[in-house]
């Protein structure tokens, strides 16, 4: 590993960047947070003062050097600042997923031996107290919101702002130590530790250095010309590497403003008010938004409906070409202008997307219709491909080179290689240092030359040079007769239907593919209401014969498109069933970032898979579920198994029949 270890030019740690920002654009907003119904702004200079105060306070309370400090809560400026304050005091911040149940937290806290936790509210305090016997290292908890905590035993608890105040009062005693730590920390030191959600096995602690974060953030910010006038909405979990890169790395490198919504439920309304210029969301978000637009347009008056249909057709034809800078006729330009005035701009405004200059989606494949919808409106939505171990960026789409089915070209500074088995490897300045306390996994993932295996199978399209991802490398299998089995590819095709929220396809080593489906309650519920179909529960709606018919048609549609692809035509889904409950992260069926955990689902629902392959028409199942408060219960159901129409493999003329 001979690559230069320093972050090019400029400050090499977040703390130094903060000082730089406070000096260069101290009066510009660093954070906005909606509180008590009003957006409150804090400047870079103000933030620098608060970080310093908390850093001093942490020293005053005796935080040890290199101690791990858990950060748990929703996106709050105080929690973002706390991460830098921890670094200033010589500790390492470890943000955790705030909706994780106590047992999951116990594992992570135990694994990193966190000594202090900085949390948002009573909910998190309760969780930590309930697992205190499993986390002996955890000596203190700082909380932001005192509500409900007044009568708690305060021997280990302390108010966040009290520690800030403590820092201000004892500034003189600890300032020298704090300054020495800040100036003594370099780009090689650990910036943050993030736990991967882990589609397989226990979460792993990914150690990222300041160099990893800052070099990646700087390069990607330049790639998209981000500057201090941009703003983002920070609403994705703080424990997720993307949020750390966008809301910390890029924000500190460029000095743009991070806006925190009032609560998860108000995010849409808050987004309208803020109008971010740089926006990231998983495909699920864009799907949901499009579904709600479609539903609302169905309810609109005839004139509005016609206007919408007509101008969306114009937009789909002209919009992407305009965005990519391809030639467009004057007549079409004028039509698009008129459409913008009547439909696109008002719609974008309603969605809070008016000012988005750069939008990214990643994590899962996005449906081409969904992707095109936003691009047709003139929103520069692009895809990127990344992972925690790479400090996010592996590939991304440059402006003007955007395709729905690829994930773009290697990001600045990233080298890419496709292995013999089709697996994608990369090497980059953002490549993680190690998995914490797990040299075995580190060695398995990262070789001596710094190449990291992504675990995804893909190839580089010869004509465009863009990377295309097929599936998880380990999920790609063989059907009984030897052809390729790529479940995720099929699942994504299924999920592009708004009615289908989640799909799990089986068939590795078998003669035929089968699938579990989850209906989308919003879309299907609305359809049911429209068609006078009464239902009392999710389960009842999911099992309704007409819903099953609709889904059978969707599956047949997917089969038809698969039949046209000689490589994947064997993956057609022959039989399917609709699950009686939504797959849920609380039951371990999805990761916290909502990726399907295939092996766990195969174990839990073995009886259903058996049913799919036994030729039965009905199958009974009983499942243990975990409620939001952590209690356990069971639900049972008899599920109907449906056959789906399949298509003969591809001579193109017949497949279209």
């Amino acid at each position, binding site marked *: 590993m001979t690559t230069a270890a320093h972050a090019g030019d400029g400050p090499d740690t977040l703390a130094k960047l903060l000082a730089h920002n406070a000096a260069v654009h101290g009066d510009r907003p660093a954070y906005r947070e909606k509180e*008590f*119904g009003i957006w409150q702004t804090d400047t870079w200079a103000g933030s620098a003062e608060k970080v310093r105060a908390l850093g001093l306070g942490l020293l005053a309370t005796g935080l040890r050097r290199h101690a791990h400090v858990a950060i748990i809560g929703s996106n709050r400026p105080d929690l973002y600042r706390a991460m830098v304050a921890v670094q200033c005091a010589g500790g390492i911040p470890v943000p955790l997923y705030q909706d994780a149940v106590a047992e999951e937290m116990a594992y992570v806290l135990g694994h990193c031996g966190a000594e202090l936790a900085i949390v948002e509210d009573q909910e998190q305090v309760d969780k930590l107290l309930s697992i205190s016997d499993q986390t002996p290292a955890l000596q203190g908890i700082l909380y932001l919101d005192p509500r*409900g905590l*007044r009568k708690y035993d305060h021997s280990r608890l302390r108010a966040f702002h009290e520690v800030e105040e403590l820092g201000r009062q004892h500034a003189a005693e600890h300032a020298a130590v704090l300054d020495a730590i800040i100036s003594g920390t370099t780009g090689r030191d650990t910036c943050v530790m993030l736990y991967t959600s882990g589609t397989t096995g226990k979460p792993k602690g990914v150690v990222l250095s300041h160099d990893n974060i800052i070099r990646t953030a700087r390069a990607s910010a330049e790639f998209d010309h981000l500057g201090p006038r941009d703003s983002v909405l920070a609403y994705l979990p703080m424990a997720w590497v993307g949020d750390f890169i966008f809301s910390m790395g890029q924000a500190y490198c460029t000095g743009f403003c991070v806006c925190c919504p*009032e*609560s998860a439920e*108000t995010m849409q309304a808050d987004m309208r008010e803020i109008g971010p210029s740089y926006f990231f969301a998983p495909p699920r978000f864009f799907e949901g938004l499009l579904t709600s637009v479609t539903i609302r347009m169905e309810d609109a008056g005839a004139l509005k409906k016609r206007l919408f249909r007509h101008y969306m057709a114009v937009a789909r034809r002209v919009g992407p070409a305009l965005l990519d800078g391809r030639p467009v006729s004057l007549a079409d330009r004028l039509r698009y202008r008129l459409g913008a005035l009547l439909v696109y701009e008002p719609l974008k405004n309603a969605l809070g997307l008016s000012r988005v200059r750069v939008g990214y989606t990643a994590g899962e494949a996005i449906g081409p219709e969904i992707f095109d919808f936003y691009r047709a409106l003139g929103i520069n939505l692009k895809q990127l491909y990344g992972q925690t171990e790479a400090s996010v960026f592996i590939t991304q789409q440059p402006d003007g080179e955007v395709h729905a089915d690829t994930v773009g070209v290697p990001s600045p500074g990233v080298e890419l290689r496709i292995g013999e088995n089709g697996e994608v490897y990369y090497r980059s300045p953002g490549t993680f240092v190690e998995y914490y306390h797990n040299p075995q996994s580190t060695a398995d993932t990262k070789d001596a030359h710094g190449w990291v295996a992504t675990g995804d199978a893909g190839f580089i399209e010869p004509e465009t040079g863009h990377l295309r991802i097929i599936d998880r490398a380990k999920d790609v299998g063989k059907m009984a007769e030897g052809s390729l089995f790529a479940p995720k590819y099929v699942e994504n095709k299924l999920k592009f239907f708004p009615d289908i929220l989640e799909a799990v396809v089986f068939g590795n080593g078998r003669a035929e593919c089968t699938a579990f489906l989850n209906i989308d309650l919003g879309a299907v519920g609305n359809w049911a209401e429209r068609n006078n179909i009464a239902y009392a529960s999710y389960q009842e709606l999911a099992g309704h014969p007409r819903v099953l018919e609709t889904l059978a048609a969707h599956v047949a549609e997917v089969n038809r498109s698969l039949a046209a692809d000689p490589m994947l035509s064997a993956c057609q889904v022959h039989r399917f069933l609709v699950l009686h409950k939504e797959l849920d992260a609380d039951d371990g069926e999805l990761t916290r970032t909502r990726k399907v955990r295939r092996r766990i689902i195969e174990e839990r629902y073995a009886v259903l898979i058996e049913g799919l392959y036994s030729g039965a028409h009905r199958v009974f199942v009983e499942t243990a579920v975990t409620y939001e408060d952590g209690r356990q219960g069971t639900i049972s159901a008899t599920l109907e198994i449906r056959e789906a129409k399949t298509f003969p493999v591809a001579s193109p003329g017949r497949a279209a029949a």
Partner: protein
Amino acid sequence: MRDTATVEPMLDIRNITLRFGGVVAIRDISFDIRQGEIRAIIGPNGAGKSSMLNVINGFYHPQEGEIWFRGKRRGPMRPHEIARQGLARTFQNIALFKGMTTLDNIMTGRMTRMRSSMLEQALWWGRAEREENAHREKVERIIDFLEIQSIRKTPVGRLPYGLQKRVELGRALAAEPELLLLDEPMAGMNVEEKEDMSRFILDVNDEFGTTIALIEHDMGVVMDISDRVVVLDYGRKIGDGTPDEVRNNPDVIDAYLGVSHD
């Protein structure tokens, strides 16, 4: 058990009897409510719970007995006069303005505290503007406290029942009462909504130091969150004490649970 109750009674009810014509709704009942406690009034249907609450907030005038509030005997008063004294309540059947937003509904709870004249408010000038801003801030704090930011601008009629109950609690809190009367705050709620409401009641008591008197059907909830419980049956008081004392009181078991001893 919680140790909130100080000795001084905030409200002292002495030998109250309330009749409607020949019907005796409440017969010679005495109990007190102490500063800072959560006091429950329970009893089977028709026991006189709601009548008792209406006596406390001055809607009914009892024929006999005395009510002492903060060491002073309270004469006959109109409900709004009593509201000024620091009492607020919620209702068994939600009594919100259905067409108005959550925010506006809670703002109405600040009415008793508004000082500017109707003309000033209509012109929204000077004192009225300053006043409204100050009140809005208080209301926003309540919205934050009750975690109803996402429905701030939603007309109340469109909200599910559990949330309407929460908005109603918000309106009562907006008056910054010293004594909060809750008439069946959990009626018709599912388990999760009940848990939420219980937590809010405890938090109100904790954070604002508000004394709370509540009527409730759900024994489980009452026993969990109350400091002291008074039990009524057919207009009489048959039990009074901590949840444990009440739970073990044979009269209460007979009357309320209808269980026979063997």
